[in-house]
């Protein structure tokens, strides 16, 4: 996976020319949502090179709309990161936004700091660990603070909080960092984004709050949707299981049904060693109704601080 080798080399040489820098040791990391991620040294410093690939859409019936959607994602992520100062959110790197036409495709390129560590999704899948309550509280607290930061900026909602977008780092000052704000949404007026290929609600469905799946409500979401996704992520990190028992390959219909109708497994059922207070907080944040989730940042932070 990743970009065609020639395209990557072309992008690399254009960046070196435009930014008067030397890029070396380029290694592919992952691809997702039109975005390719590489680890690279920029003037000797390791950064995460992010390349949005906007394919040739001339044959697509809504080509202009789809193109705008993808470009919008890239620019939105960069703009938000540029405004953020919270240690719980990934920071921009030395390559600021740049835009290249190569062949029929367009590429938007920028860099972020490279975080040494592993994302929670990989940890859950690969490591048989049982994190203690202190670590879980630090994780939840980091996510709540990140959600608070982006909400306070311009009422942004991340919309894609999930274990794969949370990095567990080796830095004790910022042990968990939230990544990937590409599909963030502002309650102050961003057009509601969509999956440009199938028009389904955008994001990873099994982490989505119920209100994001209901057409009459999805236009009025707020940070409490992120709380839901954060709580599901914490639940999974704590127990290794999805609270609604939704598998990775579950059909959309089943995922939607379970999200809208089934009660989550109480965390205490799977982790009897954790305190009632912590389990209740996680369970509460997974309430189907945003008005019934705790929403006061100070109250939540007070409950999570060690």
């Amino acid at each position: 996976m990743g970009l065609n080798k020639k395209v990557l080399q072309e992008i690399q040489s254009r960046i070196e020319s435009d930014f008067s820098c030397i890029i070396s040791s380029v290694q592919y990391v992952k691809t997702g949502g039109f975005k390719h991620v590489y680890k690279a040294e920029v003037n000797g410093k390791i950064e995460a090179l992010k390349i949005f690939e906007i394919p040739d859409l001339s044959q697509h019936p809504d080509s202009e709309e789809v193109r705008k959607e993808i470009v919008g994602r890239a620019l939105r992520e960069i703009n938000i990161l540029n405004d953020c100062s919270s240690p719980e959110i990934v920071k921009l790197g030395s390559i600021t936004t740049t835009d290249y036409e190569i062949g029929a495709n367009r590429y938007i390129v920028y860099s972020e700091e490279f975080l040494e560590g592993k994302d929670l999704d990989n940890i859950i899948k690969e490591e048989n660990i049982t994190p203690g309550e202190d670590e879980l509280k630090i994780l939840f607290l980091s996510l709540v603070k990140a959600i608070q930061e982006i909400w306070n900026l311009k009422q942004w909602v991340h919309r894609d909080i999930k274990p794969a977008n949370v990095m567990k780092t080796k830095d004790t000052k910022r042990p968990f960092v939230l990544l990937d704000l590409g599909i963030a949404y502002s309650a102050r007026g961003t057009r509601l984004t969509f999956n440009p290929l199938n028009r389904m609600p955008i994001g990873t469905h099994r982490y989505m709050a119920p209100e994001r799946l209901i057409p009459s409500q999805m236009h009025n979401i707020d940070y409490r949707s992120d709380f839901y996704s954060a709580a599901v992520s914490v639940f999974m990190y704590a127990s290794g299981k999805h609270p609604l028992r939704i598998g990775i390959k579950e059909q959309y219909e089943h995922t939607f049904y379970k999200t809208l109708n089934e009660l989550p497994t109480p965390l205490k059922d799977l982790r009897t060693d954790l305190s009632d207070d912590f389990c209740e907080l996680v369970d509460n944040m997974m309430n189907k109704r945003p008005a019934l989730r705790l929403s006061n940042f100070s109250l939540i932070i007070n409950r999570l601080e060690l």
Partner: protein
Amino acid sequence: MRLFAQNGFQEGKKIENGIEKKVIDGIIYSPRDVTYTKLVERLKELKKRFNYIEALFDPQFYGCFFAGAEDAKLGNLLSDYDGYFQPRRRNALEREKQVEEDLYATMKFQKSLPELSAVIAPNIYIPRTLNSIEAVIAKNFIRLARGVYSKLKDKRPLYVTLALSREALMNSEELLEFLNEITLIDEPPDGFYLLIGARSTSYRTDIYNADVIAGWLLLNYSLSINGYKVINGFSDIVTPFLGASGAYAGCTGWWSNLRTFSLERFQYRPSGGRRPVQRYLSTKLLNRITFSELNQINSIGIDVLNGLSSDAYYLKTDDLDEDKIPESNQEIEQSWEALKELNNSLFNMKSKVPEKLKSCLLALDSADDLYQKIPLQLDPKSNSEHIEPLQEGIRAFARLAGINIPKD
């Protein structure tokens, strides 16, 4: 959970008595029923004698739409409280500026009463549905209250009135949508003074309706988990159940119109009618029965007594005694004492909401069993018709809130 006296006409020494007997924790004054001079005097007296009580003032701004009607029953509101209480039409309150002015005037009035423990911001009444112009106006009062209050530089806690009809409460989807908005305001108050309106204080089933109970519990739950203190006006016997869902306080008074909230009290009604029959609030039946019913039930050996000191006002000392008719101040003391007992004993305050709800359901089952044993035709207000709506209401609330009530 706290219990406040809902003040009304003919206060007498009821409040002092209730505080001295430790059956109430505070009082909410209503300007309709007390002159300004008397209010100031009473607040000073009470705070001097009982500094620890909470004293609040319900501005009753929700009566403002009646103020233009010649036959409206507004008591002292227009004469003594015209500094903030003025006739208003709905379209005037659609302008934010008018809302801000009314908020300012009402809270400024309360600033002049330093004996009050907190300030209650005014609001209008939402009569039919939460999807209405009145609901938008009510949300504006809630949204703007803190900002206006900060101009007064008053450090006391701020509550905002939220007054809505039982009809508005019955649509759970609209209620949740409404809650979505009011739990996410930028400058929140410290709490809410919540009023649920019946069409009439004599319609028992207006409040004892499963959807109404579920909605009322839901409001308390949603607001309390978000850190708001919720004081439920006119909550009477529903008070301890609201406590199970997170309420901070409930209120009740000595007349039927102080036990159920209804705008009916601001409207003209032909005067007259009989004095109400004195009643006994049984913690075991979770309802009031008449004093004569109490004596009849006692005489056949069924125990519905609370075992509290105020029982003495109702009990015959020997078989030759006539039925004892308690005085009005004794009746309200008995009600407060019984409610205080229920607030303290219906569930363990330290337990979690699901366990509290379970305890409420067990108490209702037990009340139902006790009713089955009573071989008498009880007065319509004394019978067991409240039990099923409370049970169903609690279960419906649990379903809406995603709460699992433990089975055993």
